């Protein structure tokens, strides 16, 4: 997967990704994508491009467990989030929806850097740096590779044994 880095800081909570109050009017990712990061990066939603990926510091997606914080990101066409660490509910919602969560050292990735994500590694083409990434355990990989829990359950009707 080749992506362009859109850089955020530490402790980006789910209300900053998509404000709780926006859920009142619609759960449609195509509607919610208009309000992505409106509190902390008001220009982001209008300018997001198909190859963009989120690159964050520690504790990305902290706060509420609301799943729209993942589906709104997917709605904007983003397929991966790289972070030094994730809040656990965000991490599991990402896995369950087929948004690739990559845990790696993001400290030297800059806005607009071109990255290539492969299993166990992120390669920064802009700076020619290889960054080690944590491998995904089997159950998580099976769900992401299926395209998320919906696709997995449609195919198998249950979890892996």
């Amino acid at each position, binding site marked *: 997967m080749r992506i362009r880095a859109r850089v955020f800081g530490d*402790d980006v*909570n789910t*209300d*900053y990704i998509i*404000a*709780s*109050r926006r*859920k*009142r*009017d*619609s*759960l449609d990712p195509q509607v919610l994508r208009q309000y992505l990061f409106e*509190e902390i990066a008001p220009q982001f939603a209008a300018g997001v491009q198909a190859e963009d990926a989120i690159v964050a510091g*520690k*504790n990305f997606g*902290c*706060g*509420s*467990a*609301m*799943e*729209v914080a*993942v*589906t709104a990101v997917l709605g904007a066409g983003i397929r991966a989030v790289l972070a030094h*660490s*994730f*809040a*656990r*509910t965000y*991490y*599991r*919602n990402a896995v*369950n*929806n087929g948004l690739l969560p990559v845990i790696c050292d993001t400290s030297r990735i800059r806005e607009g850097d071109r990255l290539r994500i492969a299993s166990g590694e992120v390669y920064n083409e802009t700076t020619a740096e290889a960054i080690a990434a944590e491998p995904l*355990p*089997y*159950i*998580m990989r099976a*769900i992401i590779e299926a395209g*998320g*829990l*919906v696709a997995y*359950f*449609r195919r198998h*009707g*249950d*979890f*892996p*044994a």
Partner: protein
Amino acid sequence: MAAQTISEKILSAKSGKNAFAGDVVVCRVDCALGTDGSTPMAIDYFEAMGGARVLNPGSIVLALDHYAPAPSRHTAQLHQRMRHFAAAHGILLWDVGEGIGHQLVVETGRALPGGLAVGADSHAVMYGALNAFATGIGSSDLAAIFISGKIWLRVPESIRVTLTGRLPAGVYPKDIALALAKQLGADGAAYKALEFGGLPESPGAMELDLEDRLVLSNLSVEMGAKNGIFAADEKTFAYLNGVSSDPEMADPQTPDPGARYCREVEMDLDRLTPQIALPHCVDRVMDIRESAATPVQMVYLGTCTGGRVRDYRQALAVLKAGGGVAPGVQLVVAPASRTVLETLARDGTLAEFIALGAVIGTPGCGSCCGTCGSIPGDNVNVISTANRNFKGRMGNGAASIYLASPASCAAAAVRGVVADPREFLA
């Protein structure tokens, strides 16, 4: 068998595997809560997964608590959809006004020692106070539980939190939690379990009443924790015997001697002082005296952290000692459940709050997450018994939220500025 933490033991029992920190296991779920914030999406996922019937409807509960009462046509329709789904599948639904789902799970004894109780809302961690492995899940997880009765979980490493001593007068469990958030940081326990306990010579944590343990378990997610768990003791079972539950189903778990902890943290409760979290991070915590004189225009008493009977009694004691609410301060009371509200009505506490000019909200999540209820205006400082103070959290990004104990919130209501509650308890 190697020594295990409480969390490892419960997830081993529920997965049928000998599970240790770092393993990813598929577990049977004993109780799952969905709210109006998460269930409509779960129903979408359920349908998209090809779900036709709910495997164990008796293990599921649904609560209409985030939009209580529904502030718009759209949210009213979400409630209608949940009511129809619950009726069609034989699932218990707590309707508008019954209260916050987490409080109701605890009040009805659905989270039991040694059980696996999850909720599609982050504050499900609260049931860990009852020795359940309890954690927040997403809507897709809830849909998969509807279909299969199971969930995948990574077994967390555990941080042992040893609390010793006794809380001084004017200092409360909320102060312990805030001090711990300061010490660990907002992600200090990410992916990990907090396992609370004391020492044989100073039981500390185990001297806390069940209602107080709920506050610590509830706030464990604000340090990033997957769950925050206590051992079960006579206080746990006294509580369970007092609610309509099935305590003989309990399978209480204690840590093995020699269980592995990734970190050990100690706190001496005797030395703790009232704390306050400043906007807009739960771990931006200081001694409340360092923030004294910060003006406050709204005081919020409620939520799954600070909306139980003892919270209101503690707040009322300070309000009465201080002579009432300062001019220019709006006091909002939104009890965690109808049962809490009824108790306050019966013992006269509610009448006293009304006489003091409090606005009484519907039992539920209220304005904690800005979905309904009293939204603060621009540049308003709110002091709240809640668990979160992110920018925009209560529905207005131009307001600032401070978090403190019920007594500290009441002290601010009396003075119109942040104040030390111990000044009113002499």
